[in-house]
């Protein structure tokens, strides 16, 4: 039987993988949950394409892919701005796009963030592995044959549900009434990503502290020619915080750390003032989480990301608040991180507020395409 393929990969981009919300529930067997690095953008792209927010999307990294559409397709792009364009014409992000057969979506230079999410109405059709369509690169599992996309790959799309079908029909009518190469909705979803916490900062001078009660810092007004950006990432104290020397705690909450080139989907390696324990400690390995900031003996912290190991034995100095994981996932090598401590109740309040915004977006789209 010939499968109906709908998208051909012309160029794969630097690292483009199929991702969904991952495979939780298997961590006790050492299986990482994985999934999209920036789940907020991944869910937004799905909602804007008329999907259930768990559908499989493409995660493009830094240099995005070129994708040729073999049939009319409703899609949405969210997350990092990698300069998407359809047949050369800039394609707006964060809104439904209707692209006729024969057109090609390509990406240019990264303008903000580094991971873009492409959702197509219905979702990408790859087999589930351990309950998820996410690509787990280290295990060669899930996604498209367990690997990143390559030129010549052909991707199938699942049938959309009622909402996606209604949106596509609606946009198809509008497009045929116009002369344009594709149709973008006249409205967009903005404000869900905390981009205001990602600023272009000049120089390497230390940035004022982010410990509780000390207020924000010089960052707010910082500007400069450097291409690198600095993000203020909110964290909670971790279990081994008290084991660290005072100077190290001052450093983690007072200085910027750079994202090292060896950073990947598994973890972000940060470089800066080495962080030291007061005295050597023998620790037993135990569970880690998305956003655990652990410190190996060289003193350079590692933030564990989507494809992390499930357990770790290094001391943990902090834990990134869930609400800021999407922004952290958009940082690229050379960008810098400033940590700001917040309380658990603040972290929870911020996360719930973000979730309410996403729920409003979902409800708004349902209303618009009733």
């Amino acid at each position, binding site marked *: 039987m010939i499968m109906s393929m709908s998208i051909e990969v012309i160029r794969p981009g630097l690292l483009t993988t199929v991702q969904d919300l991952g495979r*939780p*529930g*298997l*961590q*006790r*067997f*050492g*299986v*990482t*949950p994985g999934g999209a690095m920036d789940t907020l953008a991944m869910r937004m792209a799905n909602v804007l394409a008329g999907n259930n927010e768990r559908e499989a999307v493409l995660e493009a990294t830094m240099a995005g892919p070129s994708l040729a559409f073999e049939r009319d397709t409703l899609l949405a792009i969210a997350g990092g701005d990698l300069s998407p364009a359809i047949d050369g014409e800039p394609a707006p992000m964060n809104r439904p796009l209707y692209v006729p057969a024969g057109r090609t979506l390509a990406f240019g230079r990264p303008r903000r963030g580094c991971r873009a999410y492409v959702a197509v109405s219905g979702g990408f059709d790859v087999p589930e*592995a*351990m309950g998820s369509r996410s690509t787990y690169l*280290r*295990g060669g*599992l899930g996604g498209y044959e367990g690997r990143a996309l390559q030129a010549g790959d052909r991707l199938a799309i699942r049938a959309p549900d009622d909402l996606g079908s209604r949106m596509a029909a609606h946009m198809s009518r509008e497009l045929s009434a116009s002369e344009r190469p594709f149709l973008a909705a006249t409205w967009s979803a903005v404000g869900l990503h905390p981009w205001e916490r990602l600023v272009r900062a000049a120089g390497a001078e230390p940035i004022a502290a982010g410990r509780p009660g000390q207020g924000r810092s010089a960052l707010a007004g910082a500007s400069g020619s450097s291409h690198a950006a600095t993000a203020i990432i909110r964290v*909670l104290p*971790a*279990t081994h915080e008290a084991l660290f020397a005072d100077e190290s705690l001052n450093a983690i909450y007072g200085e910027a750390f750079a994202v090292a080139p060896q950073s990947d989907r598994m973890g972000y390696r940060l470089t800066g003032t080495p962080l030291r324990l007061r005295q050597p400690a023998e620790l*037993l*390995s*135990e*569970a*880690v*989480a*998305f*956003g*655990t900031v652990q410190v190996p003996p060289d003193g350079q912290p590692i933030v564990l990301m989507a494809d992390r*190991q*499930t*357990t*770790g034995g290094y001391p943990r100095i902090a*834990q*990134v*608040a*869930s609400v800021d994981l999407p922004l952290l996932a958009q940082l690229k090598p050379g960008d810098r991180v400033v940590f700001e401590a917040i309380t*658990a*109740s603040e*972290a*929870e309040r911020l*996360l*719930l507020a973000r*979730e309410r915004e996403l729920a409003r977006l979902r409800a708004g789209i349902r209303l618009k395409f009733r």
Partner: protein
Amino acid sequence: MMTERESAERSAADIRLEPLGDSAAVVRFGETIDPLVHRRVIGLAERLAHSPVPGMTDVVPAFASLTVHYDPIALHARHGTAVREAGGSFGYVSRCLAELIQAGGHAAVAQARIVDIPVCYGAELGPDLGEVAAHSALTEEEVIAIHAAGDYTVYMIGFAPGFPYLGGLSPRIATPRQATPRLAIPAGSVAIGGGQTGVYPLATPGGWRIIGRTPIRLFRPEEPIPSFLRAGDRVRFRPITRKEYDRYEEGAT
């Protein structure tokens, strides 16, 4: 003689609950590698498998702690009032966990599974057996005999899918890791790293000394439980010949 209730309270009293960020809670039973502490970890993991706390997405037993990952958004959506009364998701999950621990007390842990792992020791499947023997001032045969006589406990699955952290290696054959790690330790390799021994489910870089290889697949992504071993299992290594190993490889598993 303590009543069952007193005993449950005593066992609950020395347990500490702490948050791991905003989406996980750690139950701490101790700070040492101790079979009795680990049995309590496994006991709670088993109870959670049968009666999960609300919002739970994962439970990860370790040497002396157990971590419950939870979804605060789902918790607020389904148990909003109770969660707010408890001061937030962590407070609510802690309360549920404390109740479960109280109720369970010293409830008997299911008998550990005893799992047999056939190993072809030495030669090209165990290239570092000679170094381990030299370091231990033993013959290769003695190293094999000591390794295969051990009674090992799976304390935790972690590091890689299906990788067991095993306790119980005889100090007589403990051998430091290699100074320069290999780029790829083949899947199935049985190795010694310091005072630990383990089996590699996937080809992975590593500095442990490879003393043999098992034809058993430890990571089975196509099965509902994708790990051959589970925390709490008891493991016995059984020496097999190269011929037997090849027969397994041909599909006798």
